[in-house]
């Protein structure tokens, strides 16, 4: 892999750049600064960094208190913990009280591979999206992550952002990262099938579309980094005329991107759909690639699903 920069590091770099002139940016960690790639921020801006120890409930509540006093609080902790251990704090102190807290779920999905279900966050999209006034984002690469954080720095509303642990293949480039807040990015146009992906699944979706094209199947690919609010406008526009829709996500089958896409389509533009996701079960042990391949969360898995759906 050419890229060595994980998305979490892109978050740190973007926040450090902004913090040079914006003293209201605060980063909070729960003994997670290393795994969040936020040690450089902590070292460079000690007065804008808060360490709370291994206490995720405290992490989110303290972030909300800081935000209530004008701070732009970025609370970073493993996605498995911040999306469930501190769920009520996210619901009450952040979303319900409408504080400017951005919850950064690091090492999301099955990034922690062999560590087991305690360390997997396959429920975070569903959990966070169910909270009124909570937005849910999952960027696909380092360039999109940077654009997303830059956009989030401009608003005052709560959000949950999931990123993975490991560097991922670039989808975009330094020169070419089309990005509009809360709008999906169209990676390819095609009239046969629509593929909707987010996070680490965007790259295999893009690869699958290229392979399908060589076989005469034209696939439209959407990078739907905005799981909530879902970009329904682009989704419905691109779904028109295709024979089927494939959604791929690193998440349990309930309540994630697939569910959101299916709900929108059923209400507006019914289509045959296929969801490629993690199972509703503890995930098999392995590296990310081994696990993804096992469950068909790969270019080959997408190609197979597309053919089964539309041919």
């Amino acid at each position, binding site marked *: 892999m050419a890229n060595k920069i994980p998305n979490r590091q892109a978050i740190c770099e973007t926040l450090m750049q902004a913090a040079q002139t914006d003293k209201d940016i605060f980063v909070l960690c729960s003994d997670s600064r290393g795994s969040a790639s936020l040690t450089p921020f902590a070292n460079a801006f000690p*007065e804008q960094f808060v360490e709370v*120890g291994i206490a995720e409930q*405290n992490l989110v*509540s*303290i972030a909300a*208190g800081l935000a209530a006093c004008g701070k732009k609080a970025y609370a970073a902790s493993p996605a498995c913990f911040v999306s469930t251990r501190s769920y009520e704090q996210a619901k009450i*102190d952040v979303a319900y009280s409408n504080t400017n807290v951005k919850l950064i779920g690091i090492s999301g999905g099955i990034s922690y591979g062999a560590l087991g279900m305690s360390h997997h966050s396959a429920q975070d999209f569903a959990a966070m999206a169910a909270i009124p006034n909570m937005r849910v984002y999952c960027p696909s690469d380092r360039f999109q992550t940077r654009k997303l954080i830059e956009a989030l720095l401009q608003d005052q509303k709560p959000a949950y952002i999931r990123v993975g642990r490991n560097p991922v293949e670039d989808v975009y480039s330094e020169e070419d990262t089309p990005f509009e807040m809360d709008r999906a990015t169209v990676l390819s146009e095609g009239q046969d099938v629509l593929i909707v992906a987010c996070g680490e699944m965007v790259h295999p979706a893009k690869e699958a579309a290229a392979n399908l094209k060589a076989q005469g199947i034209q696939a439209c690919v959407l990078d739907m980094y905005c799981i909530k609010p879902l970009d329904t406008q682009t989704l419905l526009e691109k779904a028109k005329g295709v024979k089927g829709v494939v959604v791929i996500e690193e998440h349990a089958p309930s309540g994630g991107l697939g569910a959101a896409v299916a709900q929108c389509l059923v209400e507006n533009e019914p289509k045959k759909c296929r969801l490629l996701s993690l199972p509703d079960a503890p995930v098999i042990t392995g590296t990310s690639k081994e696990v993804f391949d096992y469950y068909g969360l790969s270019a080959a898995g997408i190609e197979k699903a597309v053919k089964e759906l539309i041919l």
Partner: protein
Amino acid sequence: MDIKELERKSWDLRQDVLDIIMAGGGGHIGGDMSLMNALLVLYKNHLNITPETVEDPNRDRFVLSKGHSVETYYAILADCGFLDLEDVKARFSKFGSPYIGHPNNKLPGIEMNSGSLGHGLPVCVGMALAGKRDGKDYRVYTIMGDGEIAEGSVWEGAMAAGHFKLDNLCAVVDRNGLQISGSTEDVMHHEPLADRFASFGWHVLEVNGDKIEELDQAFAKAKTLKGKPTVIISHTTKGYGSSIMENKAGWHHHLPNAEEYEIIKADFAARKAGV
């Protein structure tokens, strides 16, 4: 306000609380009564928050962590000019009302939403930390119930407040000794409570919270205590003010009937006359 004046006012406001609860058809009257004195003396003599300063970055912050005692909060916010008491009475708990059964920051003067217990203290840690980092001299206050402090998040907050030496933070425990299922010491004991807070790095003050003067002095003293946050353990009487309610766990959220209403009203009037 001087102490006598506050004492007289407390009885008027207890009557307001009773009327709000009767109008809404429900509430948490037991804890409302034990909370009244601490919240009243805080708003009248210590917080620098007024309807004109609710957006001032230098205002003190208050979070009612025992959010179910919201009827007392409404009565005091109304008396301080944030809310219209008659509007509260007319709409409390009614369909579409902004006056719901727990604090909501869409209402003027309310900083944070609460209701689920164990949130106020950790949120106030964030507020106090912001004040310290900004070099501001505002103070941050929260009031918790004693049943509430069984929540683990309270102690996460207590730990952090001690760690960051937040001497701009003052927490009150409304120590009425009762929760919905009975005595706090039977349900899940908290003693030695003062030692517990002291071991987390806090100054500890203990007062008879049924006496306004003791609370007033404690809040004043807390401002002078440096290097650590301060907790005021306010020993109170649940249902304070009427013999039919006092120290009865069943009055946690009991709605008085017409006969009980008249007894309580008469008790409040008699206690006011005795000030």
